[in-house]
């Protein structure tokens, strides 16, 4: 306390407070810059760490994997059958699969007439926990998952012959990687009768080709709402895949870049991690997203390319992963739930990257404070009609955007939305000729202050839940703080500048632009369409924007 007191006195003696007040907007920019730099330096040696398996029980690849030549013909047999099923309707495919699973010895059931699953109860375990092997009939690109389905059923057959399971094994066949799988997961936890205990981990198989051979394995692990599986699960997947002699690709890294281990490659991977995680749910799901929110560690294994590695090798990854997870006692206790991967075996943990988003939040807070105290605003008392007016506008805009989001859920109108957004951005330009009352300026400052304060709060609350999203929207929306309110009539260039800044920081426009530039999968207004299923992530930002638009309307 004494130290604080001393600092306070020193500050008072030097008259720092007024000076500091003046520089608040500058501080805001500097803090934002520092946080960006602190993210950018993560790929430098010494900033990141090598991954390691922190849970002793896992012991990946300690047991020899036996899914080899002996299973070849069984797998091929199933695959020939599956190849004929491409044109069959879903229910018939499921019926055939159900017969197969029953023949092997599983108890089967269907959910919604669309998802079939079989449970192999562990012969000597207590049956309270389960591991899931999920096979979507169609993968994220909409291709028929021939190899995956054949692998799924032959692995089920193979697993059932081992007496070593301490957890039940559930094999799930769903129509696609998105809604149908997710509805099964939800039903499993709520309404299904045939269950096999709490699911500890899930592996989704994606082997879309009919070929015997493939080249490398893609691992997808980004969950919804910034959720990630326990790092140990990703680690064992990577370690097993490499142990079996395959290359690992994260975040869809192309084949030719897999070998790269440089500062630049790590930097690109960092950006890919942030992008994929913040757009998870908006992008086409790989299957593992379906398990988010239920304390299930899930990832998707995807066979890619044409090469010299045969399909049973791919099957050995889930085999070894299952044996490894089987060794677990209860759940994944240790390791990290918050991380960014820079390479399959390099990661940064939350303590290294969190300060960046905290910084952004702080930058907004500084801007907010700046709006309160600068431009002679601090002479006006806090409890005043201006503040009240600002609060009311703020509250109304939140309510409005909330209603708007609900309406948008029911009626989709992306082009229209885009148009409205652009129109809003140009309000300063259009309205520049209108005279501005002196009192309105204070209200405008107050509104900006509340807007930035609110935004800072939103960023803070997103920090832990969804760091990548917090960072992305923080960066994309930051131009907003540069919008200036002038006491005199704004010149056309300044109004244009304000309009541009608003245009850039508009949530819909910037998210669209962001995904168009950085992600080949999402083009045009596709992102907006996809926002609907993922609207929850977005509406806080929407609120904010509407709020800001409202404030300009107030001008």
């Amino acid at each position: 306390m004494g130290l604080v007191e001393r600092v306070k006195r020193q500050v008072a003696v030097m008259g720092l407070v007024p000076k500091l007040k003046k520089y608040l907007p500058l501080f805001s920019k500097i803090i934002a810059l520092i946080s960006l730099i602190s993210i950018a330096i993560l790929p430098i040696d010494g900033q990141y760490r090598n991954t390691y398996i922190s849970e002793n029980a896992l012991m990946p690849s300690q047991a020899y994997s036996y899914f080899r030549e002996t299973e070849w013909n069984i797998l091929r047999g199933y695959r020939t059958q599956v190849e004929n099923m491409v044109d069959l309707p879903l229910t018939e495919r499921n019926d055939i699969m159900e017969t197969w699973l029953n023949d092997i010895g599983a108890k089967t059931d269907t959910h919604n007439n669309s998802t079939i699953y079989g449970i192999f109860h562990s012969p000597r375990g207590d049956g309270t926990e389960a591991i899931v092997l999920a096979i979507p009939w169609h993968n994220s690109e909409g291709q028929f998952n021939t190899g995956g389905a054949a692998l799924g059923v032959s692995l089920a057959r193979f697993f059932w012959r081992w007496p070593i399971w301490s957890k039940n094994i559930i094999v799930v066949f769903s129509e696609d990687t998105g809604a149908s799988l997710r509805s099964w997961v939800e039903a499993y936890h709520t309404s299904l009768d045939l269950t096999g205990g709490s699911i500890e981990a899930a592996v989704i198989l994606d082997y879309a080709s009919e070929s015997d051979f493939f080249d490398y394995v893609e691992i997808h692990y980004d969950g919804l709402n910034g959720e990630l599986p326990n790092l140990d699960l990703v680690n064992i997947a990577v370690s097993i895949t490499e142990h079996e002699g395959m290359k690992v690709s994260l975040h869809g890294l192309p084949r030719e870049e897999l070998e790269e281990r440089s500062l630049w490659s790590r930097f690109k991977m960092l950006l890919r991690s942030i992008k994929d995680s913040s757009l998870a749910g908006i992008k086409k799901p790989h299957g593992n997203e379906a398990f988010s929110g239920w304390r299930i560690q899930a990832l998707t294994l995807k066979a890619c390319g044409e090469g010299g590695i045969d399909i049973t090798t791919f099957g050995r990854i889930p085999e070894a992963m299952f044996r490894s997870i089987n060794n677990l006692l209860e759940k994944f206790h240790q390791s990290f739930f918050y991380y960014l991967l820079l390479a399959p075996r390099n990661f940064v943990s939350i303590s290294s990257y969190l300060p960046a988003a905290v910084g952004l939040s702080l930058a907004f807070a500084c801007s907010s404070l700046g709006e309160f105290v600068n431009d002679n605003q601090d002479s006006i008392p806090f409890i005043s009609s201006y503040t009240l007016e600002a609060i009311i506008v703020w509250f109304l805009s939140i309510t409005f955007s909330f209603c708007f989001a609900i309406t948008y859920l029911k009626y989709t109108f992306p082009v229209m939305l885009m148009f409205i957004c652009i129109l809003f951005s140009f309000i300063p330009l259009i309205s520049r000729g209108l005279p501005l009352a002196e009192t309105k300026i204070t209200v405008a400052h107050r509104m900006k202050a509340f807007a930035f304060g609110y935004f800072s709060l939103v960023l803070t609350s997103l920090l832990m839940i969804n760091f990548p999203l917090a960072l992305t929207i923080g960066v994309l929306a930051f131009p907003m703080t540069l919008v200036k309110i002038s006491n005199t009539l704004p010149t056309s260039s300044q109004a244009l500048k304000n309009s541009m800044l608003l245009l850039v920081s508009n949530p819909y426009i910037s998210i669209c632009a962001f995904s168009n530039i950085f992600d080949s999968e999402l083009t045009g207004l596709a992102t907006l369409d996809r926002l609907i299923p993922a609207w929850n992530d977005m509406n806080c930002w929407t609120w904010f924007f509407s709020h800001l638009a409202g404030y300009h309307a107030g001008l």
Partner: protein
Amino acid sequence: MRIWSVVFLFVLQMLATVSAEHTNNWAVLVSTSRFWFNYRHMANVLSMYRTVKRLGIPDSQIILMLSDDVACNSRNLFPGSVFNNKDHAIDLYGESVEVDYRGYEVTVENFIRLLTDRWSEDQPKSKRLLTDENSNIFIYMTGHGGDDFLKFQDAEEIASEDIADAFAQMHEKKRYNEIFFMIDTCQANTMYSKFYSPNILAVGSSELDESSYSHHSDVEIGVAVIDRFTYYTLEFMEQIEKSSNLTLQDLVDSYTFEKVHSHVGVRTDLMERDPKDILITDFFASVQNILPDSTEDLGKKVATNKILTSLLEQNSKTDTAAMDGTTDVKYFKKVGSLNQHLDEENDSSNSMYDLSLTAGSILFSIVALFVLHKY
């Protein structure tokens, strides 16, 4: 003055007792870690169990503390079996394994109570360490350890001071003659560093800041099945028979860094005898079951209950010449000193009676051997 003489006599008596030879052997075998991935610790301790049992210590004198049941774990590919080698040659869990403390009974408290024998009245005898001042105890521990501690059950730890204090209590309560303490864990040598009671010899698998490593994994079971230190201890033990002349020094010499991958430590300063003079069988075998093959061997190997020792003392006087090896001479000298002390109270007229009893007992042994041989 009188008081002092009494004290002096008392001290003399104490000394005589301490330096006396042992008449019975006990083994305390402890694995402390839980969970399937610690399979090797269970295998370690069961291997030791098998060895001491093979060398003749009966189950009633082995306290086996097994912290987890890996044999019946659902992850075990060979239900009911535990192997310490990937060749699966020996099933350590086969038949007649008597586990005295299992699973969650293996706690620090129970271990300390066992050593110091502080139990409630209803503790069964089979779960107690019923040793006396003539007992040689072999204590083997394995698990996960660190600097001056060994983890029990993923929940608690025992400190090296705890064990040292327990040994001191045992010494005060005359619960042992000699202790051979062996420990296989990371930083194992720290665990015996705090001992301060006499007649304890300790061997540990690794130095401070050094890990103990597993020897190999079984690819079918999917776990490491034995630790290096224990593996090479067992390798050495395999050549030991009940009649073996090998000493603890030979055992210690058999460990090399190339084999164990850590620096094996030995602590000899508390022990009166030199490890060179201590037979492996002094700790790993039960003396009662060793029977003489011939009269020469009689002197070499004997060790029996009190009566028999005292009787043999007479015999030794005549047979000393036949004996070879310094150990044995020393041995008999000690027995002699004890028995002289005892004899002070005895009437010399008993000597005739003693002689006949000795002869009778030898005769009885031969007959017994003959009968046993028939079976």
